[in-house]
């Protein structure tokens, strides 16, 4: 036992000293590992920042993290598939933690026309106070005002839609939809506000009117299309949406955002696999340098290794020694690389302005500011990738070194 501990410490000393025999080569290799680790973490943080921003933006327009619908509503979002406004146990649940905001709203396809043009839109009949609790920012209404109550008689449309319809604040437009009996329901309504959204497609799609006004237009009574619920943390939704589902009952369809918007969920999944791919690719490039360095180190020391074996060192120990050299190199690189990444990302967490390429990002559903998010998971993942793959790569030179025949090795000039 004592012998093993002694030999381990001897091995460590040997490895450490060998490493610094050629300090230039080791230094260059170290720099390569540091840069690699730093790049891995930085890229992951940037991608996570992008994806989180997309998900959060998507949930703001979805809206909410959980929605309750008529079971047929998602296939046919017509006014016929409406539900009762929340009451009883469901209402009680909606007004307590972890729910931080909810809205009972009408969402039906409609046509909006001005004198010049007409467009298909999504008519939202909302209670403005609930909508704000769900994430609508009244400061986004750039002209005029937001609705003042569920029975407001005005209409709030997006900036881009106003442009397309060639209409403006205080002008009348006509909204047209269908009532539950498939008859045309239409009325003139005055534009009282124009909002801007992060995405142009939102500005084109959503028009807001008072809930009672829309209910009257469509002959809905007090019924609504959906109940949208938020808890402010999209990762935590798995913990509470089942209780909402139970309270809503089996006649209604209750779904979390992962199932409501498959695109957002696949973005989240893509992000994780993307991070792994980037890390592995960076490391593959790095591993060639690492293997080369170790092969050179072994090649230079053939006579020395032969001598050690001739003096009774076991082949296994030779292998451990080479692997230990590699491990020390990797751990040093990891520590410095992680520290460097921390130092780079932390100051950037307030956001990087990327508005120069905003038009392209818009298509992918992203805004023009990038907020890198550093997660412990990224650092652990990069560490795991570097150590595991690094040791695997070092196995080849280490194995070769341990297989030398001492006589031949000593005879090598």
């Amino acid at each position, binding site marked *: 036992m004592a012998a093993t501990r002694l030999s381990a410490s001897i091995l460590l000393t040997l490895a450490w000293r060998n490493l610094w025999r050629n300090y230039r080569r080791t230094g260059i290799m170290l720099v390569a590992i540091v840069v690699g680790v730093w790049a891995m973490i930085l890229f992951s943080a940037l991608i996570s920042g992008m994806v989180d921003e997309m998900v959060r933006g998507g949930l703001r327009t979805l809206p909410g993290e959980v929605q309750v619908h008529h079971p047929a509503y998602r296939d046919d979002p017509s006014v016929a598939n409406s539900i009762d406004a929340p009451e009883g146990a469901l209402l009680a649940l909606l007004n307590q933690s972890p729910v931080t905001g909810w809205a009972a709203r009408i969402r039906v396809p409609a046509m909006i026309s*001005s004198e*010049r043009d*007409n467009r298909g839109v999504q008519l939202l009949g909302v209670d403005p106070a609930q909508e704000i609790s769900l994430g609508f920012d009244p400061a986004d209404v750039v002209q005029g005002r937001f609705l003042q109550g569920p029975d407001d008689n005005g209409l709030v449309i997006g900036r881009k839609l106003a442009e397309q319809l060639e209409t403006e604040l205080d002008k*009348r437009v*006509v909204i047209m939809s269908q009532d539950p009996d498939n008859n*045309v329901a239409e009325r*003139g309504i005055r534009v009282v506000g124009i909002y801007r959204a992060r995405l142009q497609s939102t500005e084109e799609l959503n028009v807001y009117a008072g809930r009672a006004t829309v209910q009257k237009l469509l002959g809905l009574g007090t019924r609504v299309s959906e109940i949208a619920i938020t808890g402010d943390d999209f990762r935590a939704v798995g913990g509470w949406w089942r209780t909402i589902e139970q309270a809503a009952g089996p006649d209604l369809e209750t779904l979390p955002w992962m199932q409501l918007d498959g695109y957002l969920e696949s973005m989240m999944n893509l992000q994780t696999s993307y991070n792994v791919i980037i890390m592995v690719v960076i490391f593959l490039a790095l591993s060639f340098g690492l293997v080369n360095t170790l092969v050179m180190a072994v090649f230079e020391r053939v006579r020395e290794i032969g001598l050690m074996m001739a003096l009774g060192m076991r082949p296994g120990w030779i292998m451990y020694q080479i692997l230990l050299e590699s491990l020390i190199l990797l751990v040093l690189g990891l520590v410095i690389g992680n520290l460097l990444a921390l130092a780079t990302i932390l100051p950037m967490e307030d956001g990087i302005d990327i508005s120069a390429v905003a038009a392209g990002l818009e298509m992918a559903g992203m805004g023009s500011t990038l907020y890198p998010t550093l997660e412990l998971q990224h650092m652990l993942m990069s560490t795991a990738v570097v150590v595991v793959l690094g040791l695997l790569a070092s196995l080849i030179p280490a194995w070769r070194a341990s297989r030398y025949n001492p006589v031949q090795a000593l005879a090598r000039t």
Partner: protein
Amino acid sequence: MNRLGSAIAIAAVTLMPALALAQEITPEDIIRNAMDHWRGTTSQGEMTMIIHRPDWERSMSMQVWTQGDKHSLVRVTAPVRDAGNGTLLLDNNMWTYSPKINRVIKVPSSMMNQSWMGSDLSNKDISKSTDIIDQYDHTLLDSREVDGHQAWVIQSIPLEEAAVVWGKEVWTIRDDYVMLEQQFWDQDGVLVKTFTTLEITVMDGRTVASRMRMQEVDKPDEWTEMRVESTRFNVELPANLFTLSNLRNPRQ
């Protein structure tokens, strides 16, 4: 229609303006009478629609049946490739039928603003009934002489909740209830399009507009013209005329 009937019809048409003027007719009634005038209680006629564009023009012949202002049926007879296409209007609902796909389709509200058979008229223009008159504030702007007739100029401003996009509409209607012009103005007071009567003829004892043109002010090279080739008023129409099955399988 018998002789007596047409005599009464002619008498009614010629007498009505005089009566109306005597009774201080309201602008609302003038528009209602004008809309009723060219429809009659029932009517059957042939019409040609000409769609003109800068680089092409096409015309379509069609047969039209109407009963009151809630029932109408239009069936295309020429050209061959469009023949058989039909449109049925019943109480503000609209259906179309195309023999090529052998389907009757109810025109959904989302398509009401789309063009009717490729013309400059929208489905909504076609299906508009006299109900809409109640949704405006009408004022008599002017009363002037046109071709030996008196003509009223009426301005109609839609009510706040009316399903009308226009800022105002200006009608010019002759004292025999022939509509001479209908102008559509936007909410900034800019003229957007006009529906003008180009020819007036007497058909089946009534003076009616026989050539009308819908024209957008911005596009002088694009217009749609409706020519009434012939029409008969107050005819007997079969009871099954305005039905979906008749739209699909013509029996007259």
